[in-house]
Protein backbone atom coordinates (compact mmCIF):
# COMPACT_ATOMS: atom_id res chain seq x y z
CA UNK A 1 0.00 0.00 0.00
CA UNK A 2 1.17 3.56 -0.71
CA UNK A 3 2.69 5.62 2.11
CA UNK A 4 0.02 8.32 1.84
CA UNK A 5 -2.73 5.75 2.25
CA UNK A 6 -1.16 4.34 5.43
CA UNK A 7 -0.79 7.93 6.59
CA UNK A 8 -4.47 8.64 5.96
CA UNK A 9 -5.60 5.42 7.68
CA UNK A 10 -3.27 6.08 10.63
CA UNK A 11 -4.56 9.65 10.81
CA UNK A 12 -8.16 8.44 10.80
CA UNK A 13 -7.38 6.09 13.73
CA UNK A 14 -5.79 9.00 15.62
CA UNK A 15 -8.97 10.98 14.93
CA UNK A 16 -11.12 8.06 16.08
CA UNK A 17 -9.19 7.98 19.37
CA UNK A 18 -9.41 11.76 19.84
CA UNK A 19 -13.11 11.90 18.93
CA UNK A 20 -14.07 8.95 21.14
CA UNK A 21 -12.14 10.40 24.09
CA UNK A 22 -14.50 13.40 23.93
CA UNK A 23 -17.66 11.33 23.23
CA UNK A 24 -16.92 8.85 26.03
CA UNK A 25 -14.97 10.78 28.69
CA UNK A 26 -15.46 14.43 27.67
CA UNK A 27 -11.72 15.06 27.37
CA UNK A 28 -9.34 16.55 24.80
CA UNK A 29 -6.72 14.20 23.34
CA UNK A 30 -3.78 16.59 23.71
CA UNK A 31 -0.76 14.50 24.61
CA UNK A 32 1.25 17.34 26.22
CA UNK A 33 -1.78 18.26 28.35
CA UNK A 34 -2.56 14.67 29.37
CA UNK A 35 1.09 14.18 30.37
CA UNK A 36 1.74 17.62 31.87
CA UNK A 37 -1.31 17.43 34.14
CA UNK A 38 0.18 14.36 35.82
CA UNK A 39 3.35 16.27 36.79
CA UNK A 40 4.19 18.44 39.81
CA UNK A 41 3.32 20.99 41.02
CA UNK A 42 -0.38 20.31 41.55
CA UNK A 43 -0.94 17.11 39.55
CA UNK A 44 -4.54 16.63 38.39
CA UNK A 45 -6.79 14.45 40.55
CA UNK A 46 -8.21 12.49 37.59
CA UNK A 47 -5.04 10.57 36.85
CA UNK A 48 -6.58 7.18 36.01
CA UNK A 49 -7.67 7.85 32.42
CA UNK A 50 -4.51 9.90 31.83
CA UNK A 51 -2.18 7.14 33.04
CA UNK A 52 -4.17 4.57 31.02
CA UNK A 53 -4.03 6.71 27.87
CA UNK A 54 -0.25 7.23 28.14
CA UNK A 55 0.35 3.51 28.80
CA UNK A 56 -1.75 2.73 25.72
CA UNK A 57 0.22 5.25 23.69
CA UNK A 58 3.46 3.39 24.50
CA UNK A 59 1.88 -0.02 23.84
CA UNK A 60 0.10 0.90 20.56
CA UNK A 61 3.15 0.51 18.29
CA UNK A 62 3.84 -2.90 19.88
CA UNK A 63 0.41 -4.04 18.66
CA UNK A 64 1.44 -2.91 15.17
CA UNK A 65 4.67 -4.91 15.63
CA UNK A 66 2.60 -8.03 16.39
CA UNK A 67 0.24 -7.46 13.44
CA UNK A 68 2.75 -6.39 10.80
CA UNK A 69 6.14 -7.49 12.11
CA UNK A 70 7.36 -3.86 12.15
CA UNK A 71 6.61 -1.32 14.88
CA UNK A 72 7.09 1.72 12.64
CA UNK A 73 9.41 3.27 15.25
CA UNK A 74 12.44 4.96 13.70
CA UNK A 75 15.82 5.96 15.12
CA UNK A 76 16.32 9.29 16.94
CA UNK A 77 17.50 12.04 14.58
CA UNK A 78 20.18 13.58 16.83
CA UNK A 79 22.87 12.64 19.33
CA UNK A 80 22.08 12.58 23.04
CA UNK A 81 22.94 16.25 23.69
CA UNK A 82 20.79 17.38 20.74
CA UNK A 83 17.90 15.21 21.91
CA UNK A 84 18.16 16.74 25.40
CA UNK A 85 17.97 20.29 24.03
CA UNK A 86 15.09 19.44 21.68
CA UNK A 87 13.18 17.65 24.45
CA UNK A 88 13.57 20.59 26.82
CA UNK A 89 12.25 22.98 24.12
CA UNK A 90 9.30 20.72 23.30
CA UNK A 91 8.40 20.26 26.98
CA UNK A 92 8.69 23.94 27.93
CA UNK A 93 7.12 25.14 24.67
CA UNK A 94 4.05 22.90 24.85
CA UNK A 95 3.55 23.75 28.54
CA UNK A 96 3.75 27.51 27.79
CA UNK A 97 1.64 27.24 24.64
CA UNK A 98 -0.91 24.89 26.27
CA UNK A 99 -0.71 22.21 23.61
CA UNK A 100 1.10 20.32 20.89
CA UNK A 101 0.41 18.74 17.51
CA UNK A 102 -2.49 16.72 18.93
CA UNK A 103 -4.10 19.25 21.28
CA UNK A 104 -3.88 22.26 18.97
CA UNK A 105 -3.24 20.66 15.55
CA UNK A 106 -5.97 18.02 15.70
CA UNK A 107 -8.43 18.65 18.56
CA UNK A 108 -8.25 22.46 18.49
CA UNK A 109 -8.52 22.75 14.73
CA UNK A 110 -11.44 20.28 14.80
CA UNK A 111 -13.22 22.77 17.12
CA UNK A 112 -12.31 25.57 14.67
CA UNK A 113 -10.49 27.35 17.54
CA UNK A 114 -8.66 30.53 16.41
CA UNK A 115 -6.22 30.04 19.31
CA UNK A 116 -5.28 26.57 18.09
CA UNK A 117 -5.01 27.80 14.49
CA UNK A 118 -2.55 30.50 15.62
CA UNK A 119 -0.53 27.97 17.65
CA UNK A 120 -0.50 25.37 14.85
CA UNK A 121 0.56 27.91 12.20
CA UNK A 122 3.34 29.07 14.55
CA UNK A 123 4.86 25.69 15.44
CA UNK A 124 4.50 24.40 11.87
CA UNK A 125 6.08 27.54 10.43
CA UNK A 126 8.94 27.58 12.93
CA UNK A 127 9.63 23.84 12.44
CA UNK A 128 9.77 24.35 8.64
CA UNK A 129 12.27 27.18 9.09
CA UNK A 130 14.42 25.14 11.51
CA UNK A 131 14.55 22.15 9.14
CA UNK A 132 15.35 24.45 6.19
CA UNK A 133 18.20 26.07 8.17
CA UNK A 134 19.59 22.73 9.39
CA UNK A 135 19.45 20.99 6.01
CA UNK A 136 20.02 23.74 3.47
CA UNK A 137 21.99 26.50 5.21
CA UNK A 138 24.26 25.03 7.91
Amino acid at each position, binding site marked *: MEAWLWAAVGGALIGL*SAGLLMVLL*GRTAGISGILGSLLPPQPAGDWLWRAGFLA*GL*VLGPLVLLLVRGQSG*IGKPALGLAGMAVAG*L*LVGAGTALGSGCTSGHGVCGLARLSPRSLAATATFMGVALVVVALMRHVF
Partner: protein
Amino acid sequence: MKDLILGLLLGGLFGFGLALSGMTDPAVVLGFLDPLGAWNQALAFVMAGALAVTFLLYRLARVRPAPLAAASFHWPTATVVDARLIGGAALFGVGWGLAGYCPGPALASLSASHGGTLVFVCAMLAGMVIVRAISQPRANLHPAVR
Protein backbone atom coordinates in the same frame (compact mmCIF):
# COMPACT_ATOMS: atom_id res chain seq x y z
CA MET B 1 -11.28 1.19 36.72
CA LYS B 2 -13.56 2.13 33.81
CA ASP B 3 -11.49 5.31 33.25
CA LEU B 4 -8.24 3.34 33.26
CA ILE B 5 -9.48 0.76 30.73
CA LEU B 6 -11.08 3.32 28.40
CA GLY B 7 -7.93 5.44 28.59
CA LEU B 8 -5.75 2.43 27.83
CA LEU B 9 -7.84 1.41 24.79
CA LEU B 10 -8.05 4.93 23.35
CA GLY B 11 -4.37 5.61 24.03
CA GLY B 12 -3.53 2.30 22.37
CA LEU B 13 -5.56 3.28 19.31
CA PHE B 14 -3.79 6.66 19.22
CA GLY B 15 -0.33 5.05 19.48
CA PHE B 16 -1.21 2.44 16.85
CA GLY B 17 -2.39 5.20 14.51
CA LEU B 18 0.79 7.23 15.07
CA ALA B 19 3.00 4.24 14.29
CA LEU B 20 0.95 3.17 11.24
CA SER B 21 1.02 6.69 9.79
CA GLY B 22 4.81 7.14 10.02
CA MET B 23 4.73 9.75 12.81
CA THR B 24 7.00 7.60 15.03
CA ASP B 25 9.84 7.78 12.49
CA PRO B 26 11.72 11.10 12.84
CA ALA B 27 13.18 10.64 9.33
CA VAL B 28 9.64 10.66 7.89
CA VAL B 29 8.56 13.65 10.02
CA LEU B 30 11.65 15.70 9.13
CA GLY B 31 11.14 14.72 5.47
CA PHE B 32 7.64 16.19 5.69
CA LEU B 33 9.01 19.40 7.25
CA ASP B 34 11.48 19.78 4.36
CA PRO B 35 9.65 21.02 1.24
CA LEU B 36 12.95 22.41 -0.10
CA GLY B 37 14.51 18.92 -0.11
CA ALA B 38 13.10 15.50 -1.06
CA TRP B 39 9.68 16.48 0.27
CA ASN B 40 7.67 13.61 1.76
CA GLN B 41 4.09 14.90 1.65
CA ALA B 42 2.45 11.75 3.07
CA LEU B 43 2.12 13.18 6.58
CA ALA B 44 -0.31 15.83 5.33
CA PHE B 45 -2.75 12.91 5.02
CA VAL B 46 -2.28 12.07 8.71
CA MET B 47 -3.49 15.50 9.71
CA ALA B 48 -6.29 15.47 7.13
CA GLY B 49 -7.51 12.03 8.26
CA ALA B 50 -7.26 12.86 11.95
CA LEU B 51 -8.98 16.23 11.54
CA ALA B 52 -11.87 14.86 9.47
CA VAL B 53 -12.72 12.07 11.93
CA THR B 54 -12.25 14.25 15.04
CA PHE B 55 -14.41 16.99 13.50
CA LEU B 56 -17.28 14.55 12.86
CA LEU B 57 -17.13 12.94 16.32
CA TYR B 58 -16.90 16.36 18.01
CA ARG B 59 -20.07 17.37 16.15
CA LEU B 60 -21.70 14.26 17.58
CA ALA B 61 -20.44 15.09 21.09
CA ARG B 62 -21.68 18.70 20.86
CA VAL B 63 -25.34 17.67 20.62
CA ARG B 64 -25.18 15.41 23.68
CA PRO B 65 -25.84 16.71 27.20
CA ALA B 66 -22.97 14.67 28.67
CA PRO B 67 -20.28 12.18 27.61
CA LEU B 68 -21.32 8.52 27.49
CA ALA B 69 -18.97 7.43 30.31
CA ALA B 70 -18.30 10.57 32.39
CA ALA B 71 -20.25 13.29 34.20
CA SER B 72 -19.49 16.28 31.98
CA PHE B 73 -17.61 17.58 28.96
CA HIS B 74 -14.35 19.47 29.50
CA TRP B 75 -14.27 21.62 26.36
CA PRO B 76 -11.31 24.04 26.42
CA THR B 77 -12.46 27.55 27.32
CA ALA B 78 -9.42 29.77 26.60
CA THR B 79 -9.85 32.06 23.59
CA VAL B 80 -7.06 34.64 23.90
CA VAL B 81 -4.18 34.59 21.41
CA ASP B 82 -1.33 36.05 23.49
CA ALA B 83 2.46 36.15 23.62
CA ARG B 84 2.57 33.12 25.90
CA LEU B 85 0.66 30.99 23.36
CA ILE B 86 2.71 32.11 20.37
CA GLY B 87 6.04 32.09 22.23
CA GLY B 88 5.37 28.59 23.58
CA ALA B 89 4.33 27.33 20.14
CA ALA B 90 7.50 28.83 18.62
CA LEU B 91 9.76 27.11 21.21
CA PHE B 92 7.92 23.87 20.56
CA GLY B 93 8.42 24.35 16.81
CA VAL B 94 12.19 24.69 17.27
CA GLY B 95 12.36 21.43 19.25
CA TRP B 96 10.07 19.63 16.78
CA GLY B 97 12.15 20.80 13.81
CA LEU B 98 15.41 19.74 15.50
CA ALA B 99 14.43 16.21 16.57
CA GLY B 100 11.31 15.37 14.53
CA TYR B 101 9.52 14.41 17.75
CA CYS B 102 6.40 16.04 19.12
CA PRO B 103 5.17 14.72 22.51
CA GLY B 104 2.92 11.87 21.27
CA PRO B 105 5.37 10.20 18.89
CA ALA B 106 8.22 10.60 21.43
CA LEU B 107 6.22 8.66 24.05
CA ALA B 108 4.98 6.15 21.47
CA SER B 109 8.61 5.43 20.49
CA LEU B 110 9.74 4.54 24.04
CA SER B 111 9.28 0.78 23.59
CA ALA B 112 12.14 0.64 21.06
CA SER B 113 14.46 1.67 23.96
CA HIS B 114 16.63 4.05 21.95
CA GLY B 115 18.78 6.13 24.32
CA GLY B 116 18.01 9.32 22.39
CA THR B 117 14.25 8.82 22.79
CA LEU B 118 14.61 8.29 26.53
CA VAL B 119 16.79 11.41 26.88
CA PHE B 120 14.26 13.43 24.84
CA VAL B 121 11.33 12.29 27.00
CA CYS B 122 13.17 12.99 30.28
CA ALA B 123 14.17 16.47 29.05
CA MET B 124 10.58 17.08 27.86
CA LEU B 125 9.23 16.16 31.32
CA ALA B 126 11.80 18.50 32.89
CA GLY B 127 10.73 21.34 30.56
CA MET B 128 7.08 20.81 31.48
CA VAL B 129 7.81 20.72 35.23
CA ILE B 130 9.95 23.89 35.04
CA VAL B 131 7.24 25.86 33.23
CA ARG B 132 4.52 24.55 35.54
CA ALA B 133 6.61 25.44 38.60
CA ILE B 134 7.28 28.98 37.34
CA SER B 135 3.80 29.76 36.07
CA GLN B 136 1.83 28.26 38.98
CA PRO B 137 2.69 30.91 41.63
CA ARG B 138 1.99 33.71 39.16
CA ALA B 139 -1.51 32.34 38.62
CA ASN B 140 -1.99 32.25 42.41
CA LEU B 141 -0.82 35.85 42.80
CA HIS B 142 -3.42 37.04 40.34
CA PRO B 143 -6.53 34.95 41.00
CA ALA B 144 -8.69 37.44 39.09
CA VAL B 145 -6.88 36.56 35.87
CA ARG B 146 -7.75 32.87 36.07
